[in-house]
């Protein structure tokens, strides 16, 4: 692919799709060499298709596209982050097809995972950017500080400069984690570093937001599979998240939803309600306002998700989730001390009311005093 052909409607064109025999250095080849059977590969394709709400007829297309796709060059930049996103993606207990596909991308730069260090590491990034100019995928985790470039640097380069430079030649950008997508924890009040998201800086490239603290690994591979199959970005919602994964709220897909509807709630973490698995709304669950796939794809190879473990959803895939008034404060509760406000207002108003009332009285008394009664004599005049 040439540089000028890489963008079509803001999305990269299909990555080399020669039908028929698998191409050398392709994903299919990489997967076979790692012992992934055809059956488990097809199973992955079917799962991906269903997760992304694609018709079953698309499964062979996905399989063919993935098998023949060249390993795309991926440059992963980590800014103000905690490495939790990388941990999430790499800490699969068993080797899954998803993780193998993830292994099979050409991850040319990732300063936590790569072996190279110092100048060698930066050189790897520069070479990858130059060789794959216009075609590489840029993955970013972490927010970018704008107050002072010195707050976060890599090899002496500020996060802002590195992002701007790397974004220039990217086919698309995947912002991974809530920090890269919406500023996340560094952006939380009072935002001491002036942290912003990728989307706040880069305006001329297609950006997919994959928020979560951390995001679900399968969402990343799903987005990647979509990109490799169709050469375009999946359908995104109004804040840039793939609709297939962030289309429904935790609340709407929660297995504890019937308890919410019936009005059965756990009041504390160890009461009867909690033991019976009742709704966690009163314990601060942010499921009703949180859009993510946790309740359906679940975590740890489909084992469970936080609510299943008895903990309320903290709303980590939504912007400003850290400033929502506390993880254990119910959504319908005010985030401020309203009773104090009301008490002060009432006390102040009572004093003002008495003062106004007394003023009214004195006005009445004064006018009574100066009032001169009209007598018959007055009228006769």
């Amino acid at each position: 692919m040439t540089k000028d052909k890489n963008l079509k409607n803001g999305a990269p064109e299909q990555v080399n799709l020669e039908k028929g025999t698998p191409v050398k250095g392709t994903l299919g080849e990489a997967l076979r060499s790692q012992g992934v059977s055809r059956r488990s590969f097809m199973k992955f394709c079917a799962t991906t298709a269903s997760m992304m709400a694609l018709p079953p007829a698309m499964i062979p297309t996905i399989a063919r596209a993935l098998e023949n796709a060249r390993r795309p060059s991926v440059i992963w930049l980590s800014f103000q982050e905690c490495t939790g996103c990388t941990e999430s993606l790499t800490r699969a207990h068993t080797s899954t097809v998803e993780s193998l596909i993830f292994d099979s991308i050409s991850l040319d730069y990732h300063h936590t995972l790569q072996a190279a260090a110092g100048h060698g590491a930066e050189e790897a990034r520069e070479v990858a950017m130059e060789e794959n100019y216009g075609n590489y995928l840029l993955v970013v985790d972490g927010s970018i500080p704008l107050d002072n470039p010195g707050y976060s640097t890599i090899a002496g380069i500020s996060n802002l400069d590195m992002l701007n430079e790397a974004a220039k030649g990217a086919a698309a950008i995947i912002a991974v984690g809530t920090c890269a997508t919406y500023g996340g924890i560094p952006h939380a009040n009072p935002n001491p570093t002036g942290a912003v998201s990728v989307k706040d800086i880069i305006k001329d490239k297609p950006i997919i937001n994959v928020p979560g603290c951390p995001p679900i690994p399968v969402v990343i591979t799903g987005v990647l599979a979509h990109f490799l199959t169709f050469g375009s970005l999946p359908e995104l919602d109004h804040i840039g998240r793939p609709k297939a994964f962030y289309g429904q709220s935790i609340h709407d897909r929660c297995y504890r939803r019937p308890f919410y509807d019936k009005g059965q709630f756990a009041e504390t973490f160890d009461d009867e309600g909690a033991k019976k698995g009742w709704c966690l709304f009163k314990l601060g669950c942010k499921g009703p306002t949180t859009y993510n796939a946790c309740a359906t794809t679940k975590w740890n190879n489909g084992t469970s998700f936080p609510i299943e473990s008895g903990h309320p959803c903290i709303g980590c895939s939504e912007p400003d989730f850290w400033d929502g008034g506390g993880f254990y404060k119910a959504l319908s509760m005010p985030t401020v001390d309203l009773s104090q406000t009301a008490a002060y207002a009432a006390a102040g108003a009572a004093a003002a009311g008495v003062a106004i009332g007394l003023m009214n009285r004195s006005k009445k008394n004064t006018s009574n005093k100066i009032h001169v009664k009209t007598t018959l004599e007055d009228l006769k005049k």
Partner: protein
Amino acid sequence: MSEIEILSWARGPGLQIATVIFVAGVVIRIFEILLLGRKANLAEAKGSEMSSGLKTMITRTVPDKTTFKRSSVTIVAGYVFHIGMFISFFFFAPHILFFKDLIGISWPSLPGAVIDACAVISIIALLAVLVNRLTNKVMRFLTNFEDLLTWFLTFLPLITGYFAFHRIGFTAPSLLAAHLLSVELLLVVFPFTKLMHTFTLFLARWYNGAISGYRGVES
């Protein structure tokens, strides 16, 4: 401002501003009314003010026959609206949590389906009183801007609450924010409009009863 930012504002500073205006406005107005004072009645009292006043506070709840005949729609729809609104307002679990945070006490909640039904009945009743107001010639003649404004501001929290409950049309944070903002709007205009009847209703009933009691006639 994103929808989440608006929601945060509505749950925090917005609510605070609305509460200050609401509480201060209501308290000042009530103090003003109470401190107006009454001229000393020089006539001999022929009965008790207090007992007649207290009795009237309750008896006026039931409309007399003539009044009921004259404004049956207003009375029936009015009662249905108020009862439905009270149930959905005071017995929906998230609302109870709000009160618990505010005053420290809570009470049992009703299932979502019951709350939903009450809210729908309230909405229908509120629409009925509007239709009646606009179709009845006398009512229409008496209707001013404030009547329509207070109707609309009462209707808003109900309809936005219904939409938020069923999560219709928009994302959950936007629906919740819209619901909270509509309540805040209602709180802000509350002390300056006829919505004050919530607090003055029983004062007025007592006063009416007390006047009759003093004169020794039935109120």
